[in-house]
């Protein structure tokens, strides 16, 4: 029992404290790749601290939905940290609902954030909300199908079960169905976490922004919570990619040494994925909004192929 609680707290700490660092590293890497020096990887922590010290300015039009949303968003992301096998194969809430739960937890955050975007009565907020839910809705089938392709092999949709299965049979990771599912999931991650080429997190240009338009009215501690939650979402998605498709290092034991090794392995895998993400983001341009569905249907096709490959190759 105490072991479970300790693991749970440790996973939450890793996700909650690691997320800003991940975003910082990503920004530094991207700056270096385009020939700028960029801020230090620790900059997001300083930003969060600055925001926490400021007063929050809230629109007169906004209701309690606007003020509650940052907390709901943070709560949903913290719960995902207990559902995903970050360090151990059987996380504390692993029994509570697996990958389907995870997708709906992300939807819970999106739902409230989109409502908050509409709440202030600004055209920007509504524009962002409308675009965000469109992208989220179109990404949904891909996520489920990609997971289905994995579950087909593992005989379970409990995330821990998938991880254990691939750990036992490492050659599964080189299977075409597995690789197709990885590609599909990677594209969906770009869309869900609001990265290029779907959304540009670094810009505040009215015509193109999605996520940033939605959270335009937030300031002070509310903005800090929203930014932190977005960073956690990216962290959790990359962790999923790392641990579902390349699960080495995730331990089934709750002992200090394997868990510490797992943490190191996770850091290594996340570093590789972050570098990959930085490469993608610096080498593609943002897509026009109405080209995004084409990208997402492409990823859907990949996921569907991956499912078919399982049926045809068995």
């Amino acid at each position: 029992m105490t072991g479970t609680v300790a693991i749970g707290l440790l996973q939450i700490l890793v996700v909650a404290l690691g997320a800003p660092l991940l975003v910082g590293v990503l920004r530094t890497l991207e700056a270096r790749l385009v020939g700028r020096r960029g801020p230090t990887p620790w900059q997001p922590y300083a930003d969060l601290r600055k925001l926490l010290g400021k007063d929050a300015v809230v629109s007169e039009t906004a209701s309690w939905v606007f003020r509650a949303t940052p907390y709901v968003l943070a709560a949903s992301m913290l719960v995902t940290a207990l559902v995903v096998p970050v360090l151990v194969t059987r996380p504390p809430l692993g029994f509570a609902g697996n990958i389907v739960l995870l997708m709906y937890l992300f939807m819970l955050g999106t739902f409230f954030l989109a409502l908050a975007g509409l709440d202030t009565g600004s055209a920007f907020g509504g524009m962002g909300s409308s675009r965000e839910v469109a992208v989220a809705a179109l990404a949904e089938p891909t996520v489920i199908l990609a997971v289905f392709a994995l579950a087909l092999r593992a005989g379970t949709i409990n995330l821990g079960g998938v991880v254990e299965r691939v750990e036992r049979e490492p050659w599964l990771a080189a299977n075409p169905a597995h690789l197709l599912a990885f590609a599909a999931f990677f594209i969906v991650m770009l869309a869900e976490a609001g990265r290029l080429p779907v959304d540009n997190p670094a810009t505040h240009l009215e015509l193109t922004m999605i996520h940033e338009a939605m959270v335009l009215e937030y300031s002070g501690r509310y903005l800090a919570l929203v930014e932190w939650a977005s960073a956690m979402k990216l962290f959790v998605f990359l962790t999923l990619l790392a641990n579902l498709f390349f699960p080495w290092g995730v331990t089934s034991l709750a002992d200090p040494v394997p868990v510490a090794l797992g943490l190191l392995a996770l850091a290594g895998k996340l570093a590789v994925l972050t570098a990959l993400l930085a490469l993608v983001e610096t080498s593609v341009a943002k897509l026009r909004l109405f080209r995004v569905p084409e990208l997402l249907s492409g990823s859907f096709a990949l996921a569907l192929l991956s499912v078919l490959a399982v049926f045809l190759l068995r």
Partner: protein
Amino acid sequence: MARLGYALAALVGLAATALGVAGMLGRAGTLAVPWLVPLGGLELTLDPLGGFFLALVGFVAVPASVYAIGYAAGSTRGVLAYLVFIVSMCAVPLAANVMTFAIAWELMSLASYFLVLQERERREAVDAAWVYAVMTHAGLACLLAGMLLLAAWTGSVRFADWRAAAPALSAGARDLAFLLLAVGFAGKAGVIPLHVWLPLAHPAAPSHVSALMSGVMIKLGVYGLVRAGTDWLGGGPAWWGTAVLLAGVVSAVVGVLYALVEHDLKRLLAFHSIENVGIILIGVGAGMLYRHAGLGELALLGLAAGLYHTVNHAAFKGLLFLGAGAVVHATGTRDMERLGGLVKRMPWTAACFLVGAAAIAALPPLNGFVSEWLTFVALLQNTRVAAPALNLVFALGIAGLALTSGLAMACFVKAYGITFLALPRSEAAGRAREAGAAMRAGMLLLVAACVALGLGPTVVLPRLAAVAAPLAGPGAPARPGLGDWLTVQVPGDFASLSTLAIAAALALGLAAPLVALRLAGASRRRRLYETWGCGRMLQTARMAYTATAFANPFKRVFDFFYRPVKRLDIEFHPASRLFVERIEYANPTRSIFEDWLYRPVLDALHAAARHARAIQSGSANLYLAYILVALLVLLVLA
């Protein structure tokens, strides 16, 4: 007087719930009055499946009637039809022979027809009622044809005898009977493309009736499908389940797509009823396919998921219709573009509607999430069916369900955000007042149901599994092990669910940032200021995003489906074309079902009627001659 009537309806609802729950728990009983009507007499039987749907009627009738005490107390119009409607809906799942069923079914249809006509001063209600009457009777014709064929083949009008005799029938006969019954019941359930009456009739009725029509009446179509497919005919070939599953996918996706571009609040909800019937049918169809494949425990899971979504949809759709009714009551409009800002003027209604919206968007830990999770888990286990073609059908079901849930979330962001948030978009919305105590009580009852059904799958699911067990075919465990008090466990370590744990974790997750911010010494001050707007002088409601704008990305992405038309109408000043006097822009979507399916049929019908008019001259002598000829022909044939 009207109050008394609605109070009586609430009592009937309570009694129905009690009796239905007793039936679900295994109490059986029969009430037969053979002399009352010809052809087998009146006969009612209580069994688990019938008990479940009886309880469902009561489950929505109670809050809807309590709500009506506050909503419709001003007039006695429609009270009798309302009572008949509820009683006849109670009788449908209990009917034990063809005659009883036909009477109950037709009474239900007629009573709801009069309820749709309740606001008969409005042209729209009259048209809706007309379409409804035609569609429901076309469905009845299919049902009666199927039932009379079965009665002729088995030699009995009692449903219990069909159960025994059905396996001996030829495959073609069973297929034909299933097809006729399925089409009839699907029409009542609002399955695409038999849905055209639903978005017209449901919004036209008063809101407590809409709640019952969407929450319960269309579910009796689902009842009929389950009853016919798995009980009367005792399971069938793979195409039955495939057809039901695919009809479910099409209804779910198409229903939610129509809802996205609909800006009439009650019509939007009606389209979501089509979507949710689709989700229910995905579960039921999966159950039928697994039953065909001989996988009893998976069939049980699929059917139980369908039943769970049935009761969940009754809870949240009932709640949403009652909430929409409160909005209409307060503002006098259903047009979302004229609403807004109600969260401050109607806080109770807004909070209740938010719970309903979150539940229908399947957000954890509410009830919609539980049944969609169960449906996903039932679908995802199709690897145990060794037939690639069927696996593909399941994969289609998975993708369709995922797309539907994403789009439903988007649609309810629109429905809630435009209706309740931002600034009021009309004077009426700015003057709105909170609903009365009875209306709030009705809504709060359903809020409690949404939360309880969300947190308590470990209690509810075993009961539903017991209802589904006799329908899941051989190999289904009578008492399936489904986990303990905390966790629902699907057989074979495939998946597990604990909404209680999720709710506790979410509560802790909400509290944690509050404490952490305090510890980190964050500023706690909040300053009110106007919304930022690029330097404009003042903010008005016209600057807020509209429902049309919100839905536009979807309209563009799915334009192959909506096939929107652009109409631009500009009136210039007579003196110069440089001055525009009036400009009108419309971008309506079209219905491919009306254009490609109903329009040709109706045109053909009109053409045939024109030809038939030739023999109708108005001369009584000629008509007498027709009668004589008809008589002679009949005599010769006999």
